């Protein structure tokens, strides 16, 4: 019998980590208990996107959105909603600072302002069942391509759509395909870069988790266009769920004859191998990635010969990232015109003339609504952070948004009305990057953030070229010096000089972009550097050597009644005071770990 209701339970990494599979089991057992198993079906889907409120579930066809579910809620929920037809208010989403819950998912601002192309199937299909993907139009595009388009038609269409690389660089995809196709030789490779190494980014993981077939289909179309029969997906080993779903999807596609010899019984062979990365950030760089597939250390090479000419095993290779591939089937189905109608600029004459389609971002950091979003190009950062993201947590003040991961930069409040566009973001010193977007608030120190990213690229530098290996090291030394209060004015000058040197002389993009976080913070938040250097103060209260913890005696006694919790937790025995009496911090003993600040329920502890 047909089901009347579907419970779409999110099984993305975030929700699974929050025990969504237990929620699913409990739902199924409660439904069975009430004899509803033939009417109500529980479906596990890929990442819904609203990771902040997981584990979550959407009830269809009503579109009711349930959040922060606990196993103990489920019996009541099933009885109320599916037997008696009354949605459970307590489990609905209520926006921060508001009182009335929003029952329908489509009315929640986080979802209402998004445009879905890449993530069009998220929350609608079970990614482990190929038929569900097909039911939503999966593999229709490759069918269309194989029956009615030549490889050149496909390339023309991709070029006209204005699709540009979503991995960060923004290179026009159609041109890449065209160049690769023209290269001589009977073996050409296509590669999907799923080595999503930027810390704070999880777009590609979620895309694979929620719709692996879109990626496979995109690669099929690309392979047909450039004349390839063999493809690779290079995926991070740290993503077990994505890896498993991808492998399942490939297996199912093979069983249906959509991968392998004679795809759809046409004269076109293509198959995909999955290769796992082994935890090296630099392997997101195309030449390093190819080296790693070949079983070598992931060290980039100079690219005076491009990979489209000589890539994997020295054969012409077309590498795109997950999101780029996932866009391709929709462009084929709905046409280049449709795709080019979304976004900024004009790409009819110049492929670099605009940013088209949508971009998936992982929104994280100090915003209320962390999660995965897909927005049209050209949307402003302000809209992303304050409307979709729901503003800054705990009523704090926005300080900066970091886009592009370790290769990107920090964007201050004054530039929040900047549209999301490859060129615009580059102009202000940041970049589109792969789509990580981390928001910092007044409690984050910009010098510390710059140091964080630099220490990341410094550790991840493969060590092949000197500017990156040594330059970033010396920059990190200077930043370290500044954060412990020993920096001088000259250090700031030297830091800027070194940054420019590393940008100009590094071998690959890792080094070439590593100084961006430093350069942008120096540009937009110079006063914070100066506070560290001149006044030996850390305005973000993060740099340990420059802060002190103190307890407000009034609050401690009046509100907390000397609860003694801080003293109990202090690892250094630095908090003096008896229970029910006022407590104080012994500055000499304090190791500044911050646990007292964390455990105090009365906000009696302050940082200066």
């Amino acid at each position, binding site marked *: 019998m047909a089901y009347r209701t579907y419970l779409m339970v999110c099984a993305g990494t975030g929700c699974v980590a*929050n025990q969504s599979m237990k929620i699913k089991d409990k739902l199924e057992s409660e439904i069975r208990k009430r004899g509803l198993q033939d009417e109500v079906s529980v479906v596990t889907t890929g990442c819904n996107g609203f990771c902040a409120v997981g584990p979550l579930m959407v009830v269809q066809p009503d579109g009711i959105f349930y959040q922060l579910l606990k196993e103990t809620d489920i019996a009541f929920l099933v009885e109320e909603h599916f037997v008696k037809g009354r949605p459970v208010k307590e489990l609905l989403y209520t926006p921060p600072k508001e009182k009335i819950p929003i029952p329908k998912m489509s009315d929640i601002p986080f979802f209402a302002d998004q445009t879905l192309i890449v993530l069009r199937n998220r929350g609608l299909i079970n990614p482990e069942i190929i038929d569900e993907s097909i039911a939503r139009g999966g593999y229709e595009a490759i069918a269309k391509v194989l029956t009615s388009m030549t490889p050149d038609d496909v390339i023309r269409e991709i070029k006209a759509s204005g699709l540009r690389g979503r991995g960060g660089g923004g290179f026009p995809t159609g041109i890449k395909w065209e160049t690769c196709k023209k290269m001589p030789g009977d073996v050409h490779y296509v590669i999907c870069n799923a080595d999503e190494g930027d*810390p*704070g980014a999880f777009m590609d993981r979620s895309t694979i988790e929620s719709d692996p077939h879109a990626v496979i289909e995109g690669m099929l179309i690309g392979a047909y266009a450039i004349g390839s029969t063999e493809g690779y997906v290079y995926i991070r080993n740290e993503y077990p769920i994505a890896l498993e779903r991808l492998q399942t999807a490939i297996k199912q596609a093979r069983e249906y004859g959509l991968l392998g010899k004679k795809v759809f019984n046409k004269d076109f062979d293509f198959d995909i191998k999955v290769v796992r990365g*082994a935890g090296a950030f630099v392997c997101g760089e195309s030449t390093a990635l190819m080296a790693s597939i070949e079983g070598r250390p992931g060290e980039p090479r100079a690219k005076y010969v491009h990979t489209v000419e000589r890539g994997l095993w020295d054969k012409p290779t077309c590498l795109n990232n997950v999101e780029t591939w996932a866009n391709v089937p929709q462009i084929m189905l709905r046409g280049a015109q449709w795709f080019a109608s979304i976004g900024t600029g004009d790409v009819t004459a110049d492929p670099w003339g605009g940013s088209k389609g949508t971009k998936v971002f992982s929104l994280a950091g100090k915003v209320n609504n962390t999660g995965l979003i897909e927005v049209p190009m050209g949307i402003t950062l302000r809209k992303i952070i304050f409307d979709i993201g729901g503003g800054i947590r705990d009523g704090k003040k926005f300080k900066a948004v970091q886009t592009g991961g370790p290769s990107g930069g920090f964007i201050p409040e004054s530039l929040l009305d900047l549209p999301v566009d490859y060129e615009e973001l580059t102009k202000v010193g940041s970049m589109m990057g792969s789509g990580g977007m981390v928001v910092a608030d007044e409690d984050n120190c910009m010098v510390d953030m710059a140091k964080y990213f630099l220490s990341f690229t410094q550790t991840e530098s493969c060590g092949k070229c000197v500017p990156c290996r040594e330059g970033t090291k010396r920059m990190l030394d200077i930043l370290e010096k500044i954060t412990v209060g020993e920096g001088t004015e000259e250090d700031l000058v030297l830091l800027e000089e070194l940054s420019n040197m590393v940008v100009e002389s590094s071998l690959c993009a890792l080094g070439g972009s590593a100084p961006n976080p430093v350069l942008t913070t120096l540009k937009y938040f110079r006063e914070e550097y100066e506070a560290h250097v001149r006044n030996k103060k850390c305005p973000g209260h993060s740099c340990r050597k420059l802060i002190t913890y103190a307890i407000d005696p009034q609050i401690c006694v009046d509100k907390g009644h000397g609860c003694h919790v801080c003293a109990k937790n202090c690892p250094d025995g630095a908090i003096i005071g008896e229970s029910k009496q006022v407590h104080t911090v012994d500055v000499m003993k304090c190791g500044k*770990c911050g646990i007292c600040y964390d455990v105090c329920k009365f906000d009696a502890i302050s940082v200066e």
Partner: protein
Amino acid sequence: METQVVENILQRHPKDQSSIIQVLLDIQNELYYIPRDVLEYVSDYLNVPLSRTYGLATFYKAFSLKPKGKYPIAVCTGTACHVQGAVKILEQIERELKVKEGETTPDKKFSVETVRCLGCCGLAPVVTVGKNLHGKVPMSKISKILKQY
């Protein structure tokens, strides 16, 4: 040497030099580290010079040449976790277990390391213990979490 485990893994991959990283990954997943004799055996089998296998095993972060604890603890230090205080979380774990990052407790129960982004930034700060992921971890709950194991 865990001959059977290693043999099974080798059978799963083509006998080709390019399989080396994939083989080492499987060994790491099963044994939680790569013992020296296994490294030598795999090198021989795939006809890769030991120096190169060693190079790979030290270049890539996924590999460890030292045994880990029964429950390897990984503190995520991705950007989202960093802004939510990952460093403080790491220090608290180090204090609780009285070991430093990269070390294993004397009873071989826990080992502590950091990872760069597990991709669940919505749950920051994130810590994995063995195969379990703990999200939105407050500093004050660390000892409680560790006691579960």
